[in-house]
């Protein structure tokens, strides 16, 4: 990488840390440290909400998905705007007016200590491990694409984030998120402009998109109702609704964002910002991936985007097989480029018969390229033993480092760092809040001074930062572990959402009902996962419904039991 790109990345990291340290001036009390004294403007909180949700792997994986599969992933977010409206009139005013630090704190006020402890523990375990993955996944990709040492890359992401989060608390997190969103959107926007400007002479963006459309990459809406499919209109709108309600309504890393707003209206507005912008932003990021696909229609792509695995295969016992595939790939690429050019020429001439003929030819050539790439990926899986290997996450970073001009490489890599750091910082701050407020202050050391809890909060942030960075190094070597961690969240969110619905909507629900409902909800998701092929996007709906059914039933029995005793 050019020294200028290095300078941009180092300057960016130094700027974020310096600004975070400056924010420590306003965090002399626990309420300031975790909730910024409920003083932040709604637009900053709104950007922080969006930055927290967009991790590096979202940025890198989504562009890769656009490249390999197209834009249908955008349907995943169709339930988000409705979820934000529902939360704005239910949980947001509820949490805000309850004056809580954490969402789980409310569960003890409404039910009992054991429900709060269980919810808090689930959050700490699932998100504690998830932060490790949020560091690990981009660290693995960046270390391979940039040729950096993995430990160095993980530390470069984890250490600055931990430092500014620990010192500056939620104010540092929020204002860093604001800058990071600007860097992310600016980076993606710049990449899009360069991709459009980089089209070959004489090729218009409209006709290039039509060629990509022939491969199905621009299909954004699928109206099939199929519970096994994740990316359909109905899965996104209904399954995604529960998922987003659970994530934004019950995950402390998000709840804590809107609790920092100046008023309940500010909290609502911060969520509604995502309601307006999330789908268009995701569509643009996916479209960036499609534009990278178009770029590689006219410029030869690497057969594999993971250079480390490529080198491993080249030097291994199946090197000759790989060399053979590579020759086939080069000629298949040339044939596909000619077919794409012929299709565009046919469209210009306007003859329907020629268009159909060239369209079929291009589809055939595209399939040939895809088949060869699939064979190369299989070869990697066989040689490396990494059976889950997919090179989708390496597409965009490889494009950045090999095709963008000096200076912009640094900006885009800084954008990937920004996406990772914004999610990690919010999670660390939330993990610290849950550790200190829900456990330390409640069970270990109640009644101490605010100064003592502030120190404990900073130590807890450091602990989670160190834990996540160390865990990231282990997670990097265990692909399946990453999958397990990601699944834990889907067991948890829907069930917790069910408990909050019980708490707020059903006044007769009891503490036992909530506790056993929460356990039953997670059990129901686990059973559904084992016995069916239902997509995970529906797990939150399953969890919520199971909690309501079991929670209300147990509450009914509880009340029936208590009634004779109270009237006797």
């Amino acid at each position, binding site marked *: 990488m050019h020294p200028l790109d290095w300078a941009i990345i180092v300057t960016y990291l130094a700027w974020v840390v310096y600004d975070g340290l400056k924010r420590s001036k306003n965090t002399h009390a626990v309420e300031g440290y975790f909730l910024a004294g409920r003083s932040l403007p709604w637009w900053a909180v709104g950007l922080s909400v969006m930055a927290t949700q967009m991790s590096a792997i979202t940025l890198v994986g989504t562009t890769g998905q656009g490249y390999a599969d197209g834009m249908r992933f955008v349907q995943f977010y169709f339930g988000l705007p409705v979820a934000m409206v529902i939360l704005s009139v239910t949980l947001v005013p509820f949490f805000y007016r*309850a004056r809580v630090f954490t969402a789980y704190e409310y569960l003890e006020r409404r039910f009992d200590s054991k429900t709060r402890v269980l919810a808090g523990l689930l959050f700490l375990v699932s998100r504690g491990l998830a932060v490790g993955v949020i560091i690990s996944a981009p660290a693995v990709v960046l270390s391979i694409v940039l040729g950096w040492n993995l430990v160095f890359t993980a530390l470069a992401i984890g250490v600055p984030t931990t430092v500014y989060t620990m010192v500056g608390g939620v104010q540092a997190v929020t204002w860093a998120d604001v800058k990071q969103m600007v860097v992310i959107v600016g980076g993606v926007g710049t990449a899009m402009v360069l991709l459009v400007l980089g089209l070959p002479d004489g090729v218009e963006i409209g006709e290039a998109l039509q060629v990509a459309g022939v491969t199905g990459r*621009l299909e954004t809406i699928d109206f099939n109702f199929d519970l096994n499919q994740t990316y359909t209109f109905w899965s996104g709108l209904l399954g995604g609704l529960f998922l987003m309600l659970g994530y934004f309504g019950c995950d402390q890393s998000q709840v804590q964002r809107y609790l920092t707003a100046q008023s309940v209206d500010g909290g609502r507005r911060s969520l*509604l910002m995502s309601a307006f912008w999330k789908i268009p932003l995701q569509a643009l990021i996916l479209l960036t991936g499609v534009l990278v696909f178009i770029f590689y229609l006219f410029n030869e792509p690497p057969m594999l985007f993971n250079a480390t695995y490529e080198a491993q295969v080249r030097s291994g016992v199946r090197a000759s097989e790989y060399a053979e595939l590579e020759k086939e790939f080069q000629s298949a690429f040339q044939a596909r480029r000619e077919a794409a050019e012929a299709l565009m020429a046919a469209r210009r001439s306007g003859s329907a018969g020629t268009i159909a003929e060239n369209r079929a030819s291009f589809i055939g050539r595209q399939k040939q390229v895809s088949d060869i790439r699939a064979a190369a990926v299989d070869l990697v899986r066989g040689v490396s033993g990494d059976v889950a290997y997919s090179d989708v996450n390496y597409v965009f970073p490889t494009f950045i480092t090999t095709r963008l001009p000096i200076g912009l490489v640094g900006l885009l890599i800084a954008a990937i760092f920004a996406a990772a750091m914004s999610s990690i910082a919010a999670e660390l701050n939330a993990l610290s809040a849950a550790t200190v407020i829900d456990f330390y202050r409640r069970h270990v050391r109640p009644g101490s001074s605010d100064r003592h809890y502030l120190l404990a909060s900073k130590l807890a942030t450091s602990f989670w930062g160190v834990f996540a960075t160390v865990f990231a190094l282990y997670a990097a070597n265990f692909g399946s572990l990453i999958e397990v961690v990601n699944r834990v969240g889907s067991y948890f969110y829907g069930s917790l959402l069910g408990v909050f619905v019980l708490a707020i909507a059903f006044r007769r629900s009891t503490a036992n009902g909530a506790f056993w409902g929460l356990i039953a909800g997670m059990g129901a998701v686990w059973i559904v996962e084992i016995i069916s092929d239902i997509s995970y996007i529906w797990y939150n709906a399953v969890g919520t419904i199971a909690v309501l059914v079991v929670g209300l039933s147990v509450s009914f029995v509880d009340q029936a039991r208590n009634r004779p005793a109270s009237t006797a």
Partner: protein
Amino acid sequence: MILARQHQSDSQRFVDTSGGESLTFIFVAVILVEVAVLVGLWLFSAHFSG
């Protein structure tokens, strides 16, 4: 104090639109914008994938 807060929280409604200002217009706008975005995405697909 906890009991007092519990009472305060229990007295709130499940759906609470009260606040310093009415956000009804923004809620309606969110839904209308979502419909417009989905229609836009569908037209985009239909135009370029057809």
